[in-house]
C-alpha cells in the first residue's frame, strides 16, 4: 500500500468520564472509499471529527494526507472536504450563492456550476436554500464539500433521514467521486450503504474496531454466504440454536425472538437436513427463507446486537 490518505493509531477520546473512542487504529488507502460502520454512539462521528481537525484527540496519532493537525492545519483544510452530520446552511441564500461562497474559501477548486450540476441541483441553482427538500439540502451540503476539489472527502452519515430516492442520488455522487480517484471516508449505520459504496469498512462498536476488511471478506469470515431464517409456528417453544450447529454446511446458529437464524455455506445441503431435524423434534416451520449474508449479519454475529438497536 502506498502512503495512506489518512491514518489513526491507538486513537482515544473521552468526554468527561465517558470514553467515546478507545484505541481505534486504521489506515485509509488513497482512492478508496472507507466506511466506518457501527450503531449510533459507537464513536464514528467523534473519530471523523478528529480526522477533520474539529476535535482534538485525547491520545494517539492522527495523520491526514501525510500531515498532522496542529502544525499543518491550513494546508490540510485546503485539501479535504467535509460534510458534517447535520448542518443547516443559510436559508436566505440561493443554491448557487452558497456553493460559490464555499468555493471562495478555498485556494483551488472547481467551478461552482459544475459541482451543482454534478449533484443534480442545476435546476435549483437560483432557489433559496430554505425552499429545498431534505434530500436536496443534503446534496447541496455535499456540493459545498466538493467545490474545493478535495483529495479526501469526509461524509458523516450522508443519507441518514433521507428518502430512498435521495439516498440513491447521494450514492451516485459518491460513486462518481470514486471513479475520479478521490478518497472518501464515510460513516453510516446502514449496512446496504456500506456494502454498496465502501471498498473497505471498519466495524466499530463502543469506540473499538471489532472487524476490518472489504465487505466481502467480512461476510466470508462468517463462514457462509447464505443465511437461513426459520420462523416457527405460534406457541412452539423456541428451539435451542446449538441443536442445529452440527447440520451439514452450517457455520453458525443463533436465535432471535421466534426466529432461528443459521449461517450456511451451501443451502441445498443444509435445508433438507434442517427440515428433517425439525420434524424429529416435532415442530413444523411456519416459514423458511434464504438470503445472502450481509454486513448486518457480521455485526450481529460479532456483538449479538443489531446495528439499528444502537
Amino acid at each position, binding site marked *: 500500500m502506498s502512503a495512506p490518505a489518512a491514518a489513526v493509531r491507538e486513537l482515544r477520546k473521552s468526554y468527561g468520564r465517558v470514553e467515546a473512542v478507545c484505541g481505534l487504529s486504521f489506515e485509509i488507502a488513497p482512492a478508496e472509499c472507507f466506511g466506518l460502520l457501527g450503531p449510533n454512539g459507537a464513536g464514528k462521528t467523534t473519530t471523523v471529527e478528529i480526522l477533520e481537525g474539529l476535535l482534538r484527540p485525547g491520545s494517539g496519532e492522527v495523520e491526514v494526507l501525510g500531515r498532522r493537525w496542529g502544525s499543518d492545519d491550513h494546508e490540510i*483544510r485546503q485539501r479535504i472536504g*467535509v460534510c458534517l452530520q447535520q448542518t*443547516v*446552511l443559510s436559508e436566505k441564500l440561493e443554491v448557487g450563492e452558497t456553493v460559490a*461562497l464555499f468555493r*471562495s*474559501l478555498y485556494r483551488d477548486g472547481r467551478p461552482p456550476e459544475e459541482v451543482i450540476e454534478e449533484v443534480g441541483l442545476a435546476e435549483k441553482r437560483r432557489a433559496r436554500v430554505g425552499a429545498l427538500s431534505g434530500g436536496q439540502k443534503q446534496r447541496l451540503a455535499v456540493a459545498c464539500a466538493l467545490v*474545493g476539489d478535495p483529495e479526501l472527502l469526509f461524509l458523516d452519515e450522508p443519507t441518514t433521514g433521507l428518502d430512498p430516492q435521495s439516498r440513491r442520488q447521494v450514492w451516485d455522487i459518491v460513486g462518481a467521486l470514486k471513479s475520479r480517484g478521490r478518497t472518501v471516508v464515510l460513516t453510516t449505520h446502514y449496512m446496504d450503504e456500506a456494502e454498496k459504496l465502501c471498498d473497505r469498512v471498519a466495524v466499530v462498536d463502543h469506540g473499538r474496531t471489532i472487524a476490518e476488511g472489504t465487505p466481502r471478506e467480512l461476510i466470508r469470515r462468517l463462514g457462509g454466504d447464505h443465511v437461513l431464517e426459520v420462523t416457527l409456528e405460534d406457541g412452539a417453544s423456541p428451539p435451542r440454536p446449538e441443536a442445529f450447529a452440527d447440520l451439514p454446511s452450517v457455520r453458525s446458529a443463533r436465535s432471535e425472538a421466534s426466529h432461528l437464524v443459521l449461517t450456511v455455506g451451501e443451502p441445498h445441503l443444509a435445508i433438507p437436513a434442517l427440515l428433517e431435524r425439525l420434524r424429529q423434534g416435532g415442530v413444523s416451520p411456519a416459514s423458511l427463507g434464504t438470503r445472502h449474508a450481509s454486513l448486518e449479519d457480521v455485526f450481529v454475529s460479532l456483538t449479538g446486537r443489531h446495528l439499528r438497536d444502537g
Partner: protein
Amino acid sequence: MGDRARWRAFLALSHARLREYYREPEVLFWGFAFPLLLSAALALAFRDRPSDPSRVIVLEGPGAERVAAALAKSTLVRVEVASEDAAARALGMGRADVVVVPAAEGNGAAGVEYRFDPSRPEAGVARARADDALQRAAGRSDPLPSRDVPVREPGGRYVDFLVPGLIGMNLMSGGMWGVGFVLVDMRIRRLLKRLLATPMRPADFLAAQMTTRVAFTAVEVGFLLAFARLALGVPVRGRLASVLAVALLGALCFAGLGLLVACRAQKIETVSGLMNVVMLPMFVGSGVFFSVERFPEAVQPVLRALPLTALNDALRAVILEGAGLAGQAPRLALLAVWGGVSFVLGLRLFRWF
C-alpha cells in the same frame, strides 16, 4: 494563503452576510421602520405647543364667584369651581394644578390661599399665574413696563433631544443583535463548525460579520438622520462626516459587545437573556429618552462610563451643537476601549460549536 485569496474569502463572507440581511424582512423593520415610527410617535406625544393653560380650581363658598371671575380674565388659566372633596381629588390625581381658597372675611380684606404641590413645576407656574391675575384684578399696577417677545429655538425641543438618543439606541440594539444573535444562530445550526472545517481564517470571518454590520449601520443612520431633518426639522449642525464617524465607532463598539455576549452561548434563550442584561440598564440610564442628569449625583460616574451614554452624548454634541470630533475625543476613546476589549475577549473565549 496569499492576501488576494484572503480578501476574496472576506468579501464573499461579507457579501453573503449582506444578502442575508436584506432578505430578512424583520431586519428592515427593526433597522428602519421601528426607529422611524418611534421617533414620530414620541415627537407627536411631546410636541411643542403654546404651553397649556394652568388648571385652577376655586373652592366653593363665599367669594368663590368673585375670585373665579377675576381668574377667568386671564388667558393663561382655566378656571373651575368645585367642592372641597372634588378639589382635593383633582389635585391628588394631577387634574388640577392649584386650588384657590377664597379666605374667610376674618381679617377684613378678601385674601386667598393657594394649595399646590411645590415639587411639581407646573403647579408652581399655575400658582404664579393665578396670583398674578388676582393681584391685577385687585388693583395692582406694575411699576416696571414689560413686553413679551416669543422666540422658538430649533434644537431645544424634546424631539431634538430624542433623535440622537434613538440613533444611539438603534446602533446598540442593531450591533448587538446583528452580531450576537446571528453568531449564536449559526452556532446552533452548526454552520460555524462547518465553516471552521474550511480553510477560512476565523478572524476574517468575524471581521466580515462586524464589517457588514457597520456598513448596514451607516445606511440606517443616514436614513434616520434624513427623516429627522426633513420630517421633524431636527437640525444637523455638525459635519455629516463627523456624525457618521461617531455612529460607525458606536456600531463597531456594540458589534464587539455583541460578539462577547455571543461567544459561548449555545441557545438563543441564553443569548437573549444576556443581551437584555447588557442593554436594559443602558436603555434606561444612558440618556436615550431623558437626560442622564436626572439621576442622582452618586450614580452619574457609573452611567457616564457606559458606552451608550458616551455614544449618545457624542451624537448630541455633534448633531445639535455642531461640535467637532476633537472635542469628543474622551467619549470616542471610551467607545473604542469598550469595543476593543469586548472584541479581543470575545475572540479569546469564542466557541465554534
